[in-house]
């Protein structure tokens, strides 16, 4: 029915995808409609027959879940971008020698570790530093990265473990420390076209998203290039 391409994307990619959409629309004239919501909603909606053409998520589990249900073809799943996991603090905070202290001395915000990818990575990172057990009681879990970020920006917590991209958009905070990539699973955003046959207009947009222009925009937003093989 709709001639526009309907994209299901995670709320955490709102800004960059809106920019990409605007750019692509004026270039190609094709219209793109993006529905931003929690990945778990979007995946289940696909299962209920949602007319989405593209499904983007930071959570491989949901991708596979969708694949199991033949909502998407396993082989069509491609990495779209990568990200970094950082410790963010409010701008006025001076350089802080004792990173570990942040997680044991006061409340810090992170996403819910059992269900939200960002939270899962954060837990891995802390476990890697052998801090998780000590830090856990100080952790404030948010349902998504943005609430986590706002809580930090308002100073409800002294620090937050978020994606590098998030730290970049929120002007009131800066990233203090980047967790070494090997201290947690690779952070990857996955993209997949839905359905059996992929219409031309969709492939076109996918190509654009994987193209250099898009890459530049991703980069300027703080995303890293996708690791070429999945995790």
């Amino acid at each position: 029915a709709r001639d526009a391409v309907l994209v299901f994307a995670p709320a955490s990619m709102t800004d960059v995808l809106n920019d990409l959409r605007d750019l692509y629309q004026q270039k190609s004239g094709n219209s793109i409609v993006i529905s931003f919501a929690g990945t778990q909603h979007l995946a289940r909606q696909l299962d209920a027959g949602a007319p989405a053409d593209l499904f983007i998520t930071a959570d491989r589990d949901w991708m596979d879940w969708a694949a199991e249900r033949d909502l998407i073809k396993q082989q069509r799943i491609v990495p779209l971008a990568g990200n970094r996991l950082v410790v963010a603090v409010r701008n006025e905070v001076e350089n802080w020698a004792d990173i570990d202290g942040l997680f044991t001395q006061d409340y810090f915000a992170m996403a819910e570790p059992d269900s939200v990818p960002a939270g899962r990575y954060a837990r891995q990172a802390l476990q890697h530093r052998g801090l998780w057990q000590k830090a856990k009681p100080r952790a404030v879990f948010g349902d998504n990265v943005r609430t986590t970020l706002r809580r930090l920006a308002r100073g409800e917590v002294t620090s937050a473990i978020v994606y590098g991209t998030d730290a970049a958009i929120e002007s009131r905070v800066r990233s203090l420390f980047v967790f070494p990539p090997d201290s947690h699973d690779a952070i990857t955003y996955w993209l997949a076209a839905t359905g059996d046959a992929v219409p031309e207009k969709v492939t076109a947009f996918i190509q654009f998203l994987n193209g250099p222009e898009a890459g530049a925009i991703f980069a300027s937003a703080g995303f890293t290039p996708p690791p070429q093989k999945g995790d």
Partner: protein
Amino acid sequence: MSSLADPAIWGIVLLSLQVSCMAMIVALPLAIIVGKVLAGPGFFGKAFLSALVHLPLVLPPVVTGYALLVLFGRRGWIGSMLDQIGIGFTFSWTGAALAAGIMAFPLIVRPIRLAFESQDARLNEMAATLGASRAKRFFKVALPLAWPGIIAGLVLGFAKALGEFGATITFVSNIPGETQTLSLAIYTLLQSPRGDSAALTLIVLSVILSFAAILASEWMANSNRRRLER
């Protein structure tokens, strides 16, 4: 989209109104019936129905949303049947209305039930002695006397429908121009620090909307009271 000049904003406002009004139009008659039944005699059957009506309030909206998805989704029990005859709730504004209506339902029923319960039984008896059938008694006596309760239910329900978020985004997703109501738009904008000012505009708009609605209702209630005092 932060300026009121932006047509997108007005699209969103209109959509929200369309959704909320549709929800009320469908839910109200049902709510009146249920309210009347619940005001009647009986205990267990009543308590059960009552609990059922309250469920959307007790469950996290997400759950109600998923339930709707399972029932009314294209592959859902009911949804698939409706699909045959060309009625689709999924990912369309009608779906948003359905979600809003169901979430608002308990709020509409309660005050109406209360209004029926507090009616003087002697008026019903009087009407019967005057030869009025059940139907006439309901439409000429019980219903008009329940007017304040109906208004109260409508106000709560409409406000809820305007503000509904969880069930809606879960059931019909967040598709601009199709299912993105005020609440959903505000949520989306709040996802990025850039969106704050635009979000504020929308928040102010929905506050204005609700104030308008409440004022209208207070006015209706007032004029009704005045009518009785003529």
